[in-house]
C-alpha cells in the first residue's frame, strides 16, 4: 500500500472548512441584504474598492476565496462519490480544475484593482 496524496487537498479542505464556517454566513447575510436593497448606502463602490485596493484587503479576499473554493471542491468530489458516481478520477479533475480556475481569476482581478 502506498501513502495517499489526498493530504494536499484535505489540508485545503480542512482549512477552508474552518474559514467558511467562521465567515461565510456573515458574508451571505451581507450579500442577501444587498440583494434585498436593505439600505442605500450599504455596499458602495467606494468603500469596497478601497478595501480591495489595500494590500491587506487583497490578501484577506484572496485567502477567503482560495480556501472556500478548495474546501467546496474537495467536498464536492466526496459528495459525488456518495451519490453513487464512481468516476472519481474524472470528478477530481473537474472539481479541482474549477477551483484552480477560480483561484487564477481571483488573482487576476485582484491585481487589476
Amino acid at each position: 500500500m502506498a501513502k495517499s496524496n489526498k493530504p494536499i487537498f484535505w489540508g485545503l479542505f480542512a482549512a477552508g472548512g474552518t474559514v467558511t464556517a467562521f465567515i461565510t454566513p456573515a458574508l451571505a447575510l451581507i450579500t442577501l441584504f444587498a440583494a434585498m436593497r436593505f439600505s442605500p448606502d450599504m455596499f458602495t463602490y467606494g468603500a469596497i474598492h478601497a478595501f480591495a485596493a489595500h494590500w491587506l484587503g487583497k490578501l484577506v479576499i484572496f485567502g477567503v476565496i482560495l480556501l472556500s473554493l478548495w474546501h467546496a471542491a474537495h467536498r464536492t468530489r466526496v459528495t459525488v462519490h456518495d451519490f453513487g458516481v464512481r468516476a472519481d478520477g474524472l470528478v477530481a479533475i473537474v472539481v479541482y480544475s474549477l477551483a484552480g480556475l477560480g483561484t487564477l481569476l481571483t488573482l487576476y482581478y485582484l491585481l487589476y484593482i
Partner: protein
Amino acid sequence: MNKPYVRSLSKTGWFLTQPRYKRYMAREVTCLFIFAYTFLLIWGLKRLAEGPDAFQGFLNALHSPLGVLFNLAVLIAAVYHSTSWFNVTPQAMPIMRGEEFVPGNIIVGAHYAVWAVVSLIVLILGV
C-alpha cells in the same frame, strides 16, 4: 459448508436508509452552495475591477427575486455547515490541559463565541 450470503448497500440510495445518513448528506451538500457562492463573489470582484458602473450593474443584477432566493439558500446552507463543523471540533482536535482533556462543550462553545465575534466584525465592515 461455506456459502456466505452477501448483502450489499445500494450505491445510489444508501443515504436514505437512516436519519443519520440523511443529516450527513445534508452537511455534505452545503459545499455546492458554498462553491456557487464563491463564484458569485469572484464575479463581483470582476465587476469591481471594471469600475463603478460595472459594479452598479452587478448590484442591479443581484437585486432580483432569484438573487434574494439564492443568497437566502446560501445563508441557510452556510449556517448548517458552520454548526456541523464546530460541533465536531472536539473529536477532531481534542485539547489536553495537564492530565485531563478539555471538555468538548467548552471547545465547541469557544468556537461559537469566536464565530459570533467574527460575524460581527464582517457585518460592521460590510454594512
